[in-house]
């Protein structure tokens, strides 16, 4: 029983970073109705820049973290300019395909930056474990959860209370009407990319600092986890992305404990399969469908 609770707690903690990855996908999808496949790769490249500094100049932890975030944001803006800004709004498929190509490009850049297969990623030194009753809280994972909660809280305030957040939601709800209200859609979208890159950068950094190693495949891994968590929750839904990330984390934690490491990733795909069969729209999918219908009626 205590194992079950401990696994669930671990799962929620790790799942919080899945939730951040899913938020990155879902915001871009919600605003643009397009999928940014290069999202994981931008985070990977940002983290590679941080690792490069760490390997060659032995900079400290804070510099690695800040470099990771800054370079992820830069890479995100690069992807936005190339695959989304430059491509017409109704050509969603072109954006998706070009973001896939940019993914490959970013991976190449990372491999040229640091040619070996695996590098050590500096772990969080503040990471001491502590116990509450019979439960063990690992420091890195607690940091992960706290940071994720802060990010989600800040994002919520941004979307509900600020004019920028309102502009973003207005574009989600009715892109054409937003145009006529004088909302500078291209600029809001650029900011949205910088924003989700920042969120993704935080998620990527905490995950890597927990794993203490990085490979170019981190981009692929982050894209998979983020996409699965988003699909579980329902595409375009923020609460769905958070819920999807947490559920994914918990299911993986249980699979790891009861079935072993080789079943951890498999459990994610089984979960997604089950969701697609039972409730194709995801947990929060119904509302999205409703809104889509509403938008359709209004066009």
């Amino acid at each position, binding site marked *: 029983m205590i194992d079950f609770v401990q696994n669930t707690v671990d799962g929620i903690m790790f799942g919080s970073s899945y939730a951040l990855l899913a938020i990155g996908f879902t915001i871009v999808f919600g605003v643009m109705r397009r999928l940014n496949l290069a999202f994981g790769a931008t985070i990977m490249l940002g983290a590679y820049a941080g690792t490069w500094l760490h390997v060659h100049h032995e900079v400290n932890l804070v510099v690695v973290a800040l470099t990771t975030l800054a370079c992820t944001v830069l890479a995100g803006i690069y992807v936005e300019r190339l695959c989304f800004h430059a491509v017409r709004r109704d050509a969603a498929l072109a954006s998706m395909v070009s973001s896939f190509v940019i993914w490959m490009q970013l991976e190449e850049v990372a491999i040229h930056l640091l040619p070996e297969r695996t590098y050590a990623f500096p772990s969080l030194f503040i990471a001491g474990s502590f116990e509450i009753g019979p439960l063990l809280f690992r420091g890195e994972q607690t940091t992960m959860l706290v940071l994720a909660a802060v990010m989600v809280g800040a994002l919520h305030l941004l979307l509900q*209370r*600020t*004019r*920028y957040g*309102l*502009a973003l*939601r*207005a574009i989600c*709800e*009715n892109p*054409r*009407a*937003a*145009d*006529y*209200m*004088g*909302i*500078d*859609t291209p600029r809001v979208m650029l900011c949205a990319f910088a924003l989700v890159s920042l969120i993704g950068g935080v998620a990527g950094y905490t995950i890597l600092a927990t794993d203490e190693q990085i490979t170019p495949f981190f981009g692929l891994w982050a894209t998979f986890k983020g996409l699965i968590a988003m699909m579980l929750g329902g595409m375009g839904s923020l609460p769905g992305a958070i819920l999807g990330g947490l559920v994914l984390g918990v299911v993986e934690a249980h699979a790891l404990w009861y079935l072993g490491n080789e079943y951890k990733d498999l459990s994610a795909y089984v979960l997604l399969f089950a969701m697609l069969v039972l409730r194709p729209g995801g947990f929060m999918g119904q509302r999205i469908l409703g*809104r889509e219908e*509403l938008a359709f009626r*209004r066009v």
Partner: protein
Amino acid sequence: MLELRGLSKHFGGVKAVDELDITVDEGEIFGLIGPNGSGKSTTINLICGVYEETAGTVRFREELMNGKQPHQRLRAGIARTFQNIRLFPNLTVWQNLWVARNSPQDLAAQGFLSRWFGATRRTRREIAELLEFADLEHKGDELASNLAFGEQRRLEFARAAAARPKLLLLDEPAAGMNRQEIHDLSGRIRRMRDSGVTILLVEHVMELVMGVAERIAVLNFGQKIASGTPGDVQRNRAVQEAYLGTSESDSPPVDTGD
């Protein structure tokens, strides 16, 4: 104020708008009428930049608008409402108005923080005035999707006004309204004009256009067939023929490619 010269829009072989010349003077209420499919909505869409014109020019306050995006035209001072309501359903009434305040003087008057994050006291006061204008004082915190139809129309009017336009395009604002609501709407349109906004009114409901417009242009098959005061237009032979067989005041609003 607004000058359309030789404005044309062809969809394949269909000439939705053909060689249209219209001049709207500053401070007037100008009516644009015509049977269904005569090109009224297309004209509005050309003026505010949804469609790219096939030929001709749109000048607004001497400035050439051709090739400008809708949000650029809005910042130049052209705002519009929609034939079919397009509010942001999951934003509150207040937020719908706030998010529409993107005029250059609004943006210039605000610092970086208030521009992106909070509303200044002046903004709050002006939004309160807009709520009063639309008769929605007590509905500020309602979600737009929870408003009744008439309230949604009023909110849309106020939202267009929030952008502080110099020219306001009203695309069939009276569609689906009863007599009392049309009466209120006329008052609101006049009030808007008196505050210094030029109005271009596209409408099926003759009661509204004839009552409120000072000059009228009549379209048929994308061409202007008559123009003048409401009296001139009503007496015009070509206009009577264009409308023959259709009941003027209650022909159903048909989406003409908006």
